[in-house]
Protein backbone atom coordinates (compact mmCIF):
# COMPACT_ATOMS: atom_id res chain seq x y z
CA UNK A 1 0.00 0.00 0.00
CA UNK A 2 1.31 3.41 -0.88
CA UNK A 3 1.53 5.99 1.86
CA UNK A 4 -1.00 8.10 -0.01
CA UNK A 5 -3.56 5.27 0.21
CA UNK A 6 -3.73 5.53 3.97
CA UNK A 7 -6.90 7.12 5.36
CA UNK A 8 -6.42 10.28 7.37
CA UNK A 9 -6.16 9.57 11.06
CA UNK A 10 -4.64 6.13 10.59
CA UNK A 11 -1.06 5.86 11.77
CA UNK A 12 0.99 4.00 9.22
CA UNK A 13 2.14 0.58 10.27
CA UNK A 14 4.79 0.57 7.60
CA UNK A 15 8.19 0.71 9.20
CA UNK A 16 11.34 2.10 7.82
CA UNK A 17 11.47 5.80 8.48
CA UNK A 18 12.87 5.82 11.96
CA UNK A 19 15.25 8.48 13.16
CA UNK A 20 18.66 7.89 11.66
CA UNK A 21 20.73 6.07 14.27
CA UNK A 22 24.01 7.26 12.78
CA UNK A 23 26.01 9.52 14.99
CA UNK A 24 29.06 11.66 14.55
CA UNK A 25 30.36 13.20 11.40
CA UNK A 26 27.88 11.67 8.95
CA UNK A 27 24.86 12.81 10.94
CA UNK A 28 26.47 16.19 11.45
CA UNK A 29 27.13 16.64 7.73
CA UNK A 30 23.56 15.65 7.01
CA UNK A 31 22.25 18.37 9.32
CA UNK A 32 24.50 20.95 7.69
CA UNK A 33 23.24 19.77 4.30
CA UNK A 34 19.69 20.33 5.56
CA UNK A 35 20.49 24.00 6.19
CA UNK A 36 22.08 24.34 2.76
CA UNK A 37 19.05 22.68 1.22
CA UNK A 38 16.72 25.08 3.04
CA UNK A 39 18.47 28.16 1.66
CA UNK A 40 19.10 26.64 -1.76
CA UNK A 41 15.35 26.03 -2.13
CA UNK A 42 14.83 29.70 -1.40
CA UNK A 43 17.50 30.99 -3.77
CA UNK A 44 16.86 28.71 -6.71
CA UNK A 45 13.17 29.48 -6.95
CA UNK A 46 13.63 33.24 -6.90
CA UNK A 47 15.44 34.73 -9.89
CA UNK A 48 15.08 38.26 -8.44
CA UNK A 49 17.16 37.12 -5.48
CA UNK A 50 19.84 35.72 -7.76
CA UNK A 51 19.87 38.88 -9.87
CA UNK A 52 20.02 41.14 -6.83
CA UNK A 53 23.04 39.20 -5.55
CA UNK A 54 24.92 39.99 -8.77
CA UNK A 55 23.47 43.44 -9.33
CA UNK A 56 25.47 45.56 -6.87
CA UNK A 57 28.90 43.95 -7.53
CA UNK A 58 28.33 44.27 -11.26
CA UNK A 59 27.23 47.91 -11.14
CA UNK A 60 30.18 48.96 -8.98
CA UNK A 61 32.55 47.01 -11.22
CA UNK A 62 31.18 48.83 -14.28
CA UNK A 63 31.61 52.22 -12.55
CA UNK A 64 35.25 51.53 -11.71
CA UNK A 65 35.90 50.11 -15.15
CA UNK A 66 34.82 53.41 -16.72
CA UNK A 67 36.89 55.35 -14.19
CA UNK A 68 39.84 53.23 -15.32
CA UNK A 69 39.12 53.89 -18.99
CA UNK A 70 38.91 57.62 -18.27
CA UNK A 71 42.12 57.84 -16.21
CA UNK A 72 44.32 55.23 -17.85
CA UNK A 73 45.66 57.39 -20.74
CA UNK A 74 47.08 59.98 -18.34
CA UNK A 75 47.95 57.77 -15.38
CA UNK A 76 51.13 55.69 -15.35
CA UNK A 77 49.91 53.63 -12.40
CA UNK A 78 46.89 52.46 -14.36
CA UNK A 79 49.02 51.94 -17.45
CA UNK A 80 51.13 49.50 -15.44
CA UNK A 81 48.14 47.83 -13.77
CA UNK A 82 45.04 48.48 -15.90
CA UNK A 83 42.92 46.01 -13.95
CA UNK A 84 43.71 47.55 -10.58
CA UNK A 85 40.39 49.22 -9.79
CA UNK A 86 38.29 46.41 -11.20
CA UNK A 87 40.29 43.81 -9.28
CA UNK A 88 40.06 45.89 -6.11
CA UNK A 89 36.31 46.37 -6.34
CA UNK A 90 35.74 42.68 -7.08
CA UNK A 91 37.87 41.62 -4.12
CA UNK A 92 36.13 44.17 -1.89
CA UNK A 93 32.87 42.57 -2.89
CA UNK A 94 34.20 39.18 -1.83
CA UNK A 95 34.52 40.66 1.66
CA UNK A 96 31.12 42.38 1.51
CA UNK A 97 29.29 39.37 0.04
CA UNK A 98 31.04 37.03 2.47
CA UNK A 99 29.72 39.06 5.39
CA UNK A 100 26.25 39.50 3.89
CA UNK A 101 26.10 35.78 3.14
CA UNK A 102 26.38 34.98 6.84
CA UNK A 103 24.16 37.82 8.10
CA UNK A 104 21.37 37.43 5.55
CA UNK A 105 21.24 33.66 6.02
CA UNK A 106 20.63 34.32 9.69
CA UNK A 107 18.13 37.12 9.04
CA UNK A 108 16.14 34.77 6.77
CA UNK A 109 15.63 32.45 9.75
CA UNK A 110 14.58 35.33 11.97
CA UNK A 111 12.08 36.62 9.41
CA UNK A 112 10.69 33.10 9.01
CA UNK A 113 10.37 32.70 12.82
CA UNK A 114 12.19 29.44 12.25
CA UNK A 115 14.92 29.76 14.89
CA UNK A 116 12.83 27.93 17.48
CA UNK A 117 12.36 24.94 15.17
CA UNK A 118 16.07 24.84 14.37
CA UNK A 119 17.33 25.15 17.93
CA UNK A 120 14.93 22.47 19.16
CA UNK A 121 16.07 20.08 16.44
CA UNK A 122 19.26 17.99 16.85
CA UNK A 123 21.17 20.74 15.02
CA UNK A 124 24.23 21.80 17.00
CA UNK A 125 25.47 25.36 17.22
CA UNK A 126 28.68 24.63 15.29
CA UNK A 127 26.60 22.99 12.56
CA UNK A 128 24.35 26.04 12.38
CA UNK A 129 27.43 28.24 12.01
CA UNK A 130 28.93 25.89 9.40
CA UNK A 131 25.70 26.14 7.41
CA UNK A 132 25.88 29.93 7.52
CA UNK A 133 29.49 29.91 6.35
CA UNK A 134 28.83 27.53 3.47
CA UNK A 135 25.87 29.63 2.36
CA UNK A 136 28.17 32.64 2.50
CA UNK A 137 30.59 30.92 0.09
CA UNK A 138 27.76 30.09 -2.29
CA UNK A 139 26.25 33.58 -2.17
CA UNK A 140 29.69 35.13 -2.71
CA UNK A 141 30.45 32.89 -5.65
CA UNK A 142 27.12 33.78 -7.24
CA UNK A 143 27.36 37.52 -6.55
CA UNK A 144 31.02 38.14 -7.33
CA UNK A 145 31.13 35.39 -9.93
CA UNK A 146 28.42 37.19 -11.87
CA UNK A 147 30.34 40.45 -11.68
CA UNK A 148 33.54 38.68 -12.83
CA UNK A 149 31.67 37.29 -15.81
CA UNK A 150 30.42 40.74 -16.78
CA UNK A 151 33.91 42.19 -16.31
CA UNK A 152 35.17 39.76 -18.91
CA UNK A 153 32.21 40.17 -21.24
CA UNK A 154 32.14 43.98 -21.12
CA UNK A 155 35.77 44.95 -20.57
CA UNK A 156 37.77 41.84 -21.40
CA UNK A 157 39.13 41.93 -17.88
CA UNK A 158 39.66 38.59 -16.15
CA UNK A 159 40.42 38.66 -12.45
CA UNK A 160 41.84 35.17 -12.89
CA UNK A 161 44.92 36.70 -14.50
CA UNK A 162 46.10 37.21 -10.91
CA UNK A 163 46.62 33.47 -10.84
CA UNK A 164 46.85 31.41 -7.66
CA UNK A 165 47.26 34.45 -5.38
CA UNK A 166 43.60 35.16 -6.16
CA UNK A 167 42.67 32.03 -4.19
CA UNK A 168 44.64 33.33 -1.22
CA UNK A 169 43.01 36.78 -1.44
CA UNK A 170 39.55 35.26 -1.81
CA UNK A 171 40.04 32.98 1.20
CA UNK A 172 41.34 35.70 3.49
CA UNK A 173 38.64 38.22 2.60
CA UNK A 174 35.86 35.67 2.82
CA UNK A 175 37.02 34.56 6.26
CA UNK A 176 37.06 38.14 7.55
CA UNK A 177 33.57 38.60 6.09
CA UNK A 178 32.48 35.52 8.06
CA UNK A 179 33.83 37.02 11.28
CA UNK A 180 31.92 40.28 10.81
CA UNK A 181 28.83 38.39 9.63
CA UNK A 182 28.80 36.26 12.77
CA UNK A 183 29.20 39.33 14.97
CA UNK A 184 26.35 41.08 13.10
CA UNK A 185 24.17 37.96 13.52
CA UNK A 186 24.92 38.09 17.24
CA UNK A 187 23.82 41.73 17.37
CA UNK A 188 20.56 40.87 15.59
CA UNK A 189 19.98 38.00 18.00
CA UNK A 190 20.60 40.34 20.92
CA UNK A 191 18.79 43.46 19.74
CA UNK A 192 16.28 42.05 17.26
CA UNK A 193 15.60 43.01 13.67
CA UNK A 194 16.09 46.66 14.61
CA UNK A 195 19.78 45.88 14.22
CA UNK A 196 19.26 44.53 10.68
CA UNK A 197 20.76 47.67 9.18
CA UNK A 198 24.10 46.54 10.63
CA UNK A 199 24.10 43.72 8.09
CA UNK A 200 24.39 46.28 5.30
CA UNK A 201 26.47 48.94 7.02
CA UNK A 202 28.91 47.18 9.35
CA UNK A 203 31.49 46.29 6.74
CA UNK A 204 31.89 49.90 5.60
CA UNK A 205 33.34 50.77 8.99
CA UNK A 206 36.51 48.94 7.96
CA UNK A 207 36.52 50.16 4.34
CA UNK A 208 38.63 53.31 4.94
CA UNK A 209 41.33 51.34 6.73
CA UNK A 210 41.33 48.34 4.38
CA UNK A 211 43.42 50.01 1.69
CA UNK A 212 41.15 48.84 -1.09
CA UNK A 213 41.96 51.64 -3.54
CA UNK A 214 45.04 53.22 -1.92
CA UNK A 215 48.11 51.99 -0.02
CA UNK A 216 47.94 51.83 3.78
CA UNK A 217 50.92 54.22 3.82
CA UNK A 218 48.70 57.16 2.86
CA UNK A 219 46.73 56.84 6.11
CA UNK A 220 47.63 58.75 9.29
CA UNK A 221 49.84 56.66 11.62
CA UNK A 222 47.02 55.91 14.07
CA UNK A 223 44.82 54.56 11.30
CA UNK A 224 47.74 52.60 9.85
CA UNK A 225 48.03 50.78 13.17
CA UNK A 226 44.36 49.85 12.95
CA UNK A 227 44.77 48.79 9.32
CA UNK A 228 47.56 46.36 10.07
CA UNK A 229 45.38 44.75 12.71
CA UNK A 230 42.85 43.82 10.03
CA UNK A 231 43.28 41.09 7.37
CA UNK A 232 41.99 43.17 4.40
CA UNK A 233 44.99 45.53 4.66
CA UNK A 234 47.35 42.60 3.96
CA UNK A 235 45.15 41.32 1.16
CA UNK A 236 44.91 44.61 -0.72
CA UNK A 237 48.58 45.40 -0.20
CA UNK A 238 49.26 41.89 -1.44
CA UNK A 239 47.05 42.51 -4.46
CA UNK A 240 49.02 45.64 -5.33
CA UNK A 241 52.26 43.67 -5.01
CA UNK A 242 50.94 41.08 -7.46
CA UNK A 243 49.65 43.65 -9.95
CA UNK A 244 52.53 46.13 -9.82
CA UNK A 245 55.55 44.00 -8.90
CA UNK A 246 54.33 40.57 -9.97
CA UNK A 247 55.23 39.33 -6.49
CA UNK A 248 53.14 37.26 -4.11
CA UNK A 249 53.88 38.42 -0.57
CA UNK A 250 53.81 35.24 1.52
CA UNK A 251 54.33 37.28 4.69
CA UNK A 252 51.17 39.27 3.99
CA UNK A 253 49.26 36.07 3.32
CA UNK A 254 50.48 34.49 6.55
CA UNK A 255 49.57 37.56 8.61
CA UNK A 256 46.12 37.75 7.04
CA UNK A 257 45.49 34.07 7.73
CA UNK A 258 46.55 34.36 11.36
CA UNK A 259 44.40 37.42 11.90
CA UNK A 260 41.49 35.74 10.14
CA UNK A 261 41.75 32.73 12.45
CA UNK A 262 41.56 35.04 15.46
CA UNK A 263 38.68 37.10 14.06
CA UNK A 264 36.61 34.08 12.97
CA UNK A 265 37.13 32.50 16.39
CA UNK A 266 36.06 35.77 18.02
CA UNK A 267 33.02 36.08 15.72
CA UNK A 268 31.93 32.52 16.48
CA UNK A 269 32.45 33.11 20.20
CA UNK A 270 30.38 36.31 20.11
CA UNK A 271 27.61 34.47 18.27
CA UNK A 272 27.74 31.57 20.76
CA UNK A 273 27.46 34.03 23.65
CA UNK A 274 24.48 35.70 21.94
CA UNK A 275 22.75 32.32 21.52
CA UNK A 276 23.41 31.49 25.17
CA UNK A 277 22.03 34.89 26.16
CA UNK A 278 18.95 34.31 23.96
CA UNK A 279 18.41 30.99 25.74
CA UNK A 280 18.54 32.82 29.06
CA UNK A 281 16.16 35.55 27.90
CA UNK A 282 13.83 33.22 26.04
CA UNK A 283 13.97 35.02 22.71
CA UNK A 284 14.75 32.05 20.46
CA UNK A 285 11.09 31.07 20.24
CA UNK A 286 9.83 34.60 19.87
CA UNK A 287 12.16 36.28 17.40
CA UNK A 288 10.59 37.34 14.15
CA UNK A 289 9.01 40.16 12.23
Amino acid sequence: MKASDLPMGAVSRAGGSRADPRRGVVASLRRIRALIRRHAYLLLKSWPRLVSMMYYPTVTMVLWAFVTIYLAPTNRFLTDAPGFFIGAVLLWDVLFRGQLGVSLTFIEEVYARNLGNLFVSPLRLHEFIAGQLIMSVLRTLIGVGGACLFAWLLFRYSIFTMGLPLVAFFTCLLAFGWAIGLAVSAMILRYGLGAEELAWAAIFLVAPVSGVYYPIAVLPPALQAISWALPPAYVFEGMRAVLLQQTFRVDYFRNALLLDAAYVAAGAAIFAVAVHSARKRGTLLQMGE
Partner: protein
Amino acid sequence: MAVTHAIAVNDLAKRFGKIEAVRGVTFEVRAGTTTALLGGNGAGKTTTLSMLLGVLLPTAGSIHVLGCDMLRERHRVLPRMNFTSPYVDLPKRLTVRENLRVFADLYGIERPAFRIGELAAELDLSDLLKRPYGQLSAGQRTRVSLAKSLLNRPEALLLDEPTASLDPDIGDRMRSYLEDYQRRSGCTMLLASHNMNEVERMCSDVIMLRAGSVVDQGSPGELIARYGRETMEEVFLDIARGVDEPAEKVVS
Protein backbone atom coordinates in the same frame (compact mmCIF):
# COMPACT_ATOMS: atom_id res chain seq x y z
CA MET B 1 17.29 1.57 36.27
CA ALA B 2 14.16 1.66 34.12
CA VAL B 3 12.81 5.12 33.37
CA THR B 4 9.16 5.15 34.42
CA HIS B 5 8.80 8.89 34.08
CA ALA B 6 9.51 10.17 30.59
CA ILE B 7 9.62 13.73 31.90
CA ALA B 8 10.73 14.71 35.39
CA VAL B 9 10.81 18.35 36.43
CA ASN B 10 12.12 19.28 39.84
CA ASP B 11 11.87 22.66 41.58
CA LEU B 12 12.00 24.51 38.28
CA ALA B 13 12.21 28.27 38.39
CA LYS B 14 12.59 31.02 35.82
CA ARG B 15 13.04 34.65 36.61
CA PHE B 16 13.06 37.47 34.05
CA GLY B 17 14.51 40.37 35.99
CA LYS B 18 12.07 40.99 38.83
CA ILE B 19 9.38 38.80 37.32
CA GLU B 20 9.14 35.21 38.51
CA ALA B 21 7.57 33.51 35.50
CA VAL B 22 7.92 30.01 36.95
CA ARG B 23 8.65 29.16 40.58
CA GLY B 24 9.28 25.85 42.22
CA VAL B 25 7.49 23.78 39.60
CA THR B 26 7.79 20.05 40.19
CA PHE B 27 5.98 17.35 38.24
CA GLU B 28 6.47 14.08 36.47
CA VAL B 29 4.93 12.69 33.32
CA ARG B 30 4.56 8.93 33.15
CA ALA B 31 5.97 7.30 30.07
CA GLY B 32 3.40 6.60 27.38
CA THR B 33 0.74 8.92 28.77
CA THR B 34 -0.61 12.32 27.82
CA THR B 35 -0.46 15.00 30.47
CA ALA B 36 -2.02 18.43 30.20
CA LEU B 37 -0.28 21.56 31.37
CA LEU B 38 -3.08 24.01 32.07
CA GLY B 39 -3.33 27.56 33.24
CA GLY B 40 -4.57 30.96 32.19
CA ASN B 41 -2.58 33.35 30.06
CA GLY B 42 0.72 34.13 31.76
CA ALA B 43 0.48 31.13 34.06
CA GLY B 44 3.86 29.84 32.88
CA LYS B 45 2.88 27.06 30.46
CA THR B 46 4.90 28.23 27.46
CA THR B 47 7.82 29.21 29.69
CA THR B 48 7.81 25.72 31.18
CA LEU B 49 7.56 24.07 27.76
CA SER B 50 10.41 26.25 26.47
CA MET B 51 12.61 25.10 29.33
CA LEU B 52 11.64 21.49 28.66
CA LEU B 53 12.76 21.95 25.07
CA GLY B 54 16.03 23.53 26.12
CA VAL B 55 15.51 26.84 24.29
CA LEU B 56 15.09 28.64 27.59
CA LEU B 57 17.52 28.18 30.45
CA PRO B 58 15.96 27.88 33.90
CA THR B 59 17.12 30.03 36.77
CA ALA B 60 17.01 26.97 39.02
CA GLY B 61 15.85 23.38 39.08
CA SER B 62 16.35 20.30 36.94
CA ILE B 63 14.67 18.75 33.91
CA HIS B 64 15.05 15.17 32.77
CA VAL B 65 13.50 14.02 29.50
CA LEU B 66 13.71 10.34 28.54
CA GLY B 67 16.32 9.90 31.22
CA CYS B 68 18.60 12.68 29.98
CA ASP B 69 19.45 15.87 31.82
CA MET B 70 18.18 18.61 29.50
CA LEU B 71 20.61 21.15 30.91
CA ARG B 72 23.69 19.04 30.29
CA GLU B 73 22.94 16.60 27.49
CA ARG B 74 20.00 17.99 25.54
CA HIS B 75 21.57 17.02 22.23
CA ARG B 76 21.39 13.36 23.21
CA VAL B 77 17.64 13.51 23.63
CA LEU B 78 16.58 16.10 21.03
CA PRO B 79 16.56 13.52 18.18
CA ARG B 80 14.01 11.53 20.22
CA MET B 81 11.62 14.39 20.95
CA ASN B 82 9.79 17.07 19.02
CA PHE B 83 7.34 19.88 19.50
CA THR B 84 4.79 22.11 17.89
CA SER B 85 4.06 25.63 19.00
CA PRO B 86 2.18 28.66 17.70
CA TYR B 87 5.22 30.74 18.63
CA VAL B 88 7.34 29.35 15.79
CA ASP B 89 6.72 29.10 12.08
CA LEU B 90 8.25 27.54 9.02
CA PRO B 91 9.82 29.35 6.05
CA LYS B 92 6.87 30.70 4.10
CA ARG B 93 8.36 30.64 0.61
CA LEU B 94 9.29 26.98 0.81
CA THR B 95 6.66 24.45 -0.15
CA VAL B 96 5.27 22.09 2.45
CA ARG B 97 7.32 19.24 0.96
CA GLU B 98 10.51 21.31 1.00
CA ASN B 99 9.98 22.32 4.61
CA LEU B 100 9.36 18.75 5.67
CA ARG B 101 12.38 17.56 3.67
CA VAL B 102 14.64 20.04 5.45
CA PHE B 103 13.47 18.89 8.85
CA ALA B 104 13.65 15.23 7.82
CA ASP B 105 17.34 15.82 7.14
CA LEU B 106 17.81 17.70 10.39
CA TYR B 107 16.33 14.76 12.29
CA GLY B 108 18.29 12.21 10.26
CA ILE B 109 15.21 10.45 8.86
CA GLU B 110 15.94 7.52 6.59
CA ARG B 111 13.90 7.44 3.39
CA PRO B 112 12.59 10.98 3.93
CA ALA B 113 10.39 11.01 0.82
CA PHE B 114 8.53 7.95 2.08
CA ARG B 115 8.10 9.38 5.57
CA ILE B 116 6.82 12.69 4.19
CA GLY B 117 4.34 10.86 1.94
CA GLU B 118 3.23 8.76 4.88
CA LEU B 119 2.60 11.76 7.11
CA ALA B 120 0.98 13.72 4.30
CA ALA B 121 -1.51 10.91 3.83
CA GLU B 122 -2.16 10.54 7.53
CA LEU B 123 -2.64 14.26 8.13
CA ASP B 124 -4.49 14.94 4.87
CA LEU B 125 -1.67 17.08 3.49
CA SER B 126 -1.06 15.31 0.18
CA ASP B 127 -2.72 18.05 -1.88
CA LEU B 128 -0.75 20.72 -0.06
CA LEU B 129 2.77 19.34 -0.51
CA LYS B 130 3.56 21.48 -3.54
CA ARG B 131 2.09 24.67 -2.12
CA PRO B 132 4.22 27.32 -0.42
CA TYR B 133 3.74 27.19 3.33
CA GLY B 134 2.94 30.91 3.39
CA GLN B 135 -0.12 30.38 1.20
CA LEU B 136 -1.78 27.95 3.61
CA SER B 137 -4.63 28.73 5.97
CA ALA B 138 -3.96 28.79 9.71
CA GLY B 139 -5.49 25.35 10.09
CA GLN B 140 -3.41 23.90 7.27
CA ARG B 141 -0.26 25.39 8.78
CA THR B 142 -1.12 23.80 12.10
CA ARG B 143 -1.32 20.41 10.40
CA VAL B 144 1.99 20.95 8.62
CA SER B 145 3.56 21.94 11.91
CA LEU B 146 2.17 18.77 13.45
CA ALA B 147 3.62 16.75 10.56
CA LYS B 148 7.00 18.38 11.20
CA SER B 149 6.76 17.41 14.85
CA LEU B 150 6.05 13.77 13.96
CA LEU B 151 8.74 13.32 11.29
CA ASN B 152 11.17 11.64 13.68
CA ARG B 153 8.51 9.47 15.37
CA PRO B 154 9.21 11.20 18.68
CA GLU B 155 9.19 9.35 21.97
CA ALA B 156 8.34 12.60 23.74
CA LEU B 157 6.11 15.17 22.09
CA LEU B 158 5.45 18.63 23.47
CA LEU B 159 2.32 20.19 22.05
CA ASP B 160 1.52 23.84 22.66
CA GLU B 161 -2.11 24.37 21.63
CA PRO B 162 -1.89 21.86 18.77
CA THR B 163 -5.52 22.19 17.64
CA ALA B 164 -6.10 25.87 18.41
CA SER B 165 -6.77 27.00 14.85
CA LEU B 166 -8.47 23.87 13.54
CA ASP B 167 -12.18 23.58 12.80
CA PRO B 168 -14.05 21.07 14.99
CA ASP B 169 -13.95 18.34 12.34
CA ILE B 170 -10.23 18.56 11.60
CA GLY B 171 -9.49 19.17 15.28
CA ASP B 172 -11.32 15.95 16.18
CA ARG B 173 -9.43 14.01 13.52
CA MET B 174 -6.12 15.38 14.73
CA ARG B 175 -6.91 14.33 18.28
CA SER B 176 -7.84 10.85 17.03
CA TYR B 177 -4.62 10.75 15.09
CA LEU B 178 -2.53 11.73 18.11
CA GLU B 179 -4.31 9.17 20.29
CA ASP B 180 -3.70 6.51 17.66
CA TYR B 181 -0.06 7.56 17.33
CA GLN B 182 0.39 7.31 21.06
CA ARG B 183 -1.21 3.88 21.27
CA ARG B 184 1.05 2.57 18.56
CA SER B 185 4.28 4.26 19.51
CA GLY B 186 4.06 4.60 23.29
CA CYS B 187 4.94 8.27 22.90
CA THR B 188 4.73 10.51 25.92
CA MET B 189 2.86 13.75 25.31
CA LEU B 190 2.76 16.96 27.27
CA LEU B 191 -0.06 19.15 26.06
CA ALA B 192 -0.68 22.82 26.74
CA SER B 193 -4.22 23.64 25.72
CA HIS B 194 -7.16 25.89 26.47
CA ASN B 195 -9.58 23.35 25.06
CA MET B 196 -10.91 21.50 28.12
CA ASN B 197 -12.84 18.97 26.04
CA GLU B 198 -9.54 18.06 24.43
CA VAL B 199 -7.92 17.72 27.84
CA GLU B 200 -10.67 15.51 29.22
CA ARG B 201 -10.54 13.33 26.15
CA MET B 202 -6.80 12.96 25.68
CA CYS B 203 -5.12 13.41 29.03
CA SER B 204 -4.71 10.97 31.86
CA ASP B 205 -3.13 13.61 34.08
CA VAL B 206 -3.49 17.35 34.47
CA ILE B 207 -1.06 19.84 35.97
CA MET B 208 -2.67 23.16 36.86
CA LEU B 209 -0.48 26.26 36.86
CA ARG B 210 -1.26 29.69 38.19
CA ALA B 211 1.17 32.59 38.42
CA GLY B 212 4.08 30.29 37.67
CA SER B 213 3.32 27.68 40.31
CA VAL B 214 1.64 24.30 40.29
CA VAL B 215 -1.59 24.75 42.21
CA ASP B 216 -3.06 21.29 41.70
CA GLN B 217 -2.65 18.10 39.74
CA GLY B 218 -4.39 14.81 39.17
CA SER B 219 -6.46 13.01 36.58
CA PRO B 220 -9.34 14.98 35.00
CA GLY B 221 -11.79 12.79 36.92
CA GLU B 222 -10.02 13.38 40.22
CA LEU B 223 -9.91 17.14 39.70
CA ILE B 224 -13.56 17.32 38.71
CA ALA B 225 -14.51 15.36 41.82
CA ARG B 226 -12.18 17.32 44.05
CA TYR B 227 -13.63 20.66 43.00
CA GLY B 228 -17.19 19.39 42.98
CA ARG B 229 -17.65 20.31 39.36
CA GLU B 230 -18.97 18.54 36.32
CA THR B 231 -16.40 19.47 33.70
CA MET B 232 -12.75 20.41 33.43
CA GLU B 233 -13.89 23.75 32.03
CA GLU B 234 -15.44 24.57 35.41
CA VAL B 235 -12.39 23.32 37.28
CA PHE B 236 -10.18 25.45 35.06
CA LEU B 237 -12.29 28.55 35.74
CA ASP B 238 -12.20 27.90 39.47
CA ILE B 239 -8.44 27.63 39.49
CA ALA B 240 -7.77 30.43 37.03
CA ARG B 241 -9.99 32.79 39.04
CA GLY B 242 -8.39 31.80 42.28
CA VAL B 243 -11.34 29.83 43.63
CA ASP B 244 -9.04 26.89 44.08
CA GLU B 245 -10.08 25.55 47.45
CA PRO B 246 -11.20 22.07 46.46
CA ALA B 247 -14.77 21.19 47.47
CA GLU B 248 -13.65 18.09 49.35
CA LYS B 249 -11.37 20.20 51.54
CA VAL B 250 -14.13 22.72 52.15
CA VAL B 251 -16.48 19.91 53.14
CA SER B 252 -13.92 18.38 55.48
